[in-house]
């Protein structure tokens, strides 16, 4: 481990030196960033070492032993959610399109109350390590676990791509390091955190990062507002002047038609309730009460963060846009306009330099890097759990797996997922990262959420219904994403999309619900009758927590 760290340290330094042969001024800037990067990496590896000693059983590995408090978990959930895609992507969207960025961020937030009212405590009362525990509670393990695991892995991989792209661009800008090498570094660090520290390390890395990110974003927002005497009207007026259009103050092209608007809303709202790495966090608290508190704190932190992101986006319009210091002259010579260095996704990073100089740029870059590391770790842990707990322990070993062996499988899966993430991160370099997350949400909303929700609330759900309906939702979402503009046109370079909408959720979520309903009510098998009978006991446990995993019994 020490040797590896040394290699990392020297490679950082070497590349930084190589990239900085040009300006003297920029070299100083990079040194403070590098030092803060390294402090964070050092501290988190320390946490990982501490957590590794406390991670002995599968329960420790998946749920940090179940002893996380509601407040800590709220912070960690917020951390999972305040990803690089949120921070860089949404502030970039506000920077580019103004009000549309706010619409997008609101969609990300409103899923939280629904999670609280509908699934949080039920999830805690019924599950053990993954949301598939709940979905398959009274259904046949093999088919439902397999489907839930595929839904989880697909969501995780899509989300990972977005994070990896953010990581590559950020480090590329900061160190002048090759995109590919940056992505590989992130992948390696993430594998270290997860394999050695499990959920405990992942949670604490997330909590620390959430605190740093909220502090940094607060400072940026206050610095921007201080420039305009804390008067929003002045800030907006200046932004409109810079952009030479008032369109940034109203809904614009992001959601141009009703179908897209509703579809995006559904994807964001129900997708949140189907994200495996988020759902997994509900198993790290002791009981339903702490699970509820987690959501309350998380909603508060996330809502506050989005308001900050909106101010930061506008701050970037007034202080970064058209500022010659951040202009990408090479790109401007080819494309015209006023492109900024590193692309729109770097708007918040440039703003940090504009308001706080080199030192604060270093801080925010380190925080953004930390954000990516923390989020990819949580995602990878969720993906690895789907492989080890759902596929290996429940499907292959039929629930008879030894805990240590299950943990081993999880660690191997982590390494494989890490490598896949690195590969895909490189393949998807030029996609807007906020949209990539939107795609992950469509799948989570169309496959994971309908099965989870109906397993909790609909007594007539059967294995056949969940399997066929859930698969239908997943396939519809995946196919429509591929045939839609983001993949068919932007990635595969076809002239026109076969499916005209960017957001397929309206169609795919409906397909899932209708499919599950239809194939359940037409299921007349003996097995289906047993599954319906078992609902009563499940309902009582989900409502009261009697018999819940790790619950304190009186």
């Amino acid at each position, binding site marked *: 481990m020490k040797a590896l760290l040394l290699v990392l340290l020297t490679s950082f330094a070497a590349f930084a030196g190589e990239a900085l042969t040009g300006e003297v001024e920029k070299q100083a800037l990079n040194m403070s960033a590098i030092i803060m990067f390294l402090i964070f990496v050092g501290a988190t590896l320390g946490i990982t070492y501490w957590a590794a000693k406390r991670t002995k059983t599968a329960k420790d590995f998946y749920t940090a032993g179940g002893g996380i408090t509601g407040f800590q978990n709220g912070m960690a959930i917020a951390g999972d959610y305040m990803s690089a895609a949120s921070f860089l992507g949404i502030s970039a969207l506000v920077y580019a399109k103004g*009000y549309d960025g*706010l*619409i997008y961020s*609101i*969609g990300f*937030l*409103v899923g*939280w*109350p*629904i999670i*609280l*009212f*509908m699934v949080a*405590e039920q999830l805690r009362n019924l599950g053990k390590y993954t949301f598939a525990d709940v979905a398959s509670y009274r259904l046949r393990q093999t088919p439902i676990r397999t489907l839930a695991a595929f839904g989880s892995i697909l969501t995780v991989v899509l989300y990972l791509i977005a994070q990896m792209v953010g990581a590559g661009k950020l480090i590329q800008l900061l160190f002048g390091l090759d995109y590919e090498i940056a992505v590989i570094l992130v992948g390696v660090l993430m594998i270290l955190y997860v394999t050695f520290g499990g959920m405990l390390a992942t949670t604490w890395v997330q909590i620390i990062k959430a605190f740093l990110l909220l502090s940094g974003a607060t400072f940026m927002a206050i610095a921007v507002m201080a420039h305009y005497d804390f008067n*929003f*009207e002045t800030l*907006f*007026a200046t932004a*409109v002047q810079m952009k030479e259009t*008032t369109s940034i*103050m*109203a*809904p*614009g092209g992001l*959601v141009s*038609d*009703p179908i*897209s*608007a*509703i579809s*995006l*809303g559904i994807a964001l*709202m129900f997708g949140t309730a189907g994200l495996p790495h988020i759902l997994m966090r509900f198993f790290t608290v002791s009981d*339903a*009460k702490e699970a*509820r*508190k987690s*959501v*309350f704190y998380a*909603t*508060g932190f996330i*809502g506050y963060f*989005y*308001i900050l992101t*909106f101010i930061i986006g506008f701050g970037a319009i007034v202080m970064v846009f058209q500022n010659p210091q951040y202009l990408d002259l090479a790109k401007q010579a080819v494309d015209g306009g006023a492109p900024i260095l590193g692309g729109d996704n770097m708007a918040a990073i440039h703003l940090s330099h504009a308001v706080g100089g080199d030192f604060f740029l270093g801080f925010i870059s380190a925080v953004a890097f930390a954000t990516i590391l923390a989020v990819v770790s949580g995602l990878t842990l969720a993906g690895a759990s789907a492989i080890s707990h759902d596929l290996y322990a429940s499907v292959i070993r039929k629930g008879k797996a030894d805990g240590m062996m299950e943990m081993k499988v999880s660690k191997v899966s982590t390494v494989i997922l890490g490598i896949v993430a690195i590969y895909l991160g490189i393949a998807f370099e030029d996609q807007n990262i906020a949209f990539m997350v939107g795609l992950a949400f469509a799948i989570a909303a169309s496959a994971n959420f309908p099965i989870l929700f109906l397993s909790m609330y609909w007594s007539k759900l059967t294995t056949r219904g969940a399997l066929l309906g859930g698969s239908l939702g997943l396939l519809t979402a995946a196919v429509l994403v591929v045939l839609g503009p983001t993949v068919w046109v932007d990635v595969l370079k076809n002239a026109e999309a076969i499916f005209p909408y960017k957001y397929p959720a309206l169609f795919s979520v409906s397909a899932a619900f209708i499919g599950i309903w239809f194939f359940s009510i037409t299921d007349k098998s003996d097995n289906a009758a047993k599954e319906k009978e078992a609902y*009563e*006991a499940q309902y*009582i*446990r989900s*409502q*009261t*927590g*009697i*018999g819940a995993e790790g619950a304190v*019994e*009186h």
Partner: protein
Amino acid sequence: MKQDMVDRIKNDPDFLQLTRVRSKFAWTLTIVMLVIYFGFVLVIAFDPALLGTPLSEGSVTTVGIPVGVGVILSAFILTGIYVRRANTEFDELTAKIKAKAKGE
């Protein structure tokens, strides 16, 4: 869970009270959130200019800004309302049901 325990709990008036009251409360709040959010989305879809109306004569700030921030605040307030009631009233009822299920 044993079948006799299931039968006992499902006929417990406290359990019936808990599930009835909580599910009504949870669904009400869910619908409030859905109405607020999809109301917002439908305005964007059908009449985006409405949100682009200046807040007052000659101002750059539009109606959309306070409305958007309002949607964010409403999400936070609704979760607060639910957690407050669930962590007191509902948890007390649950504790009673659990005690009875264990005791008898």
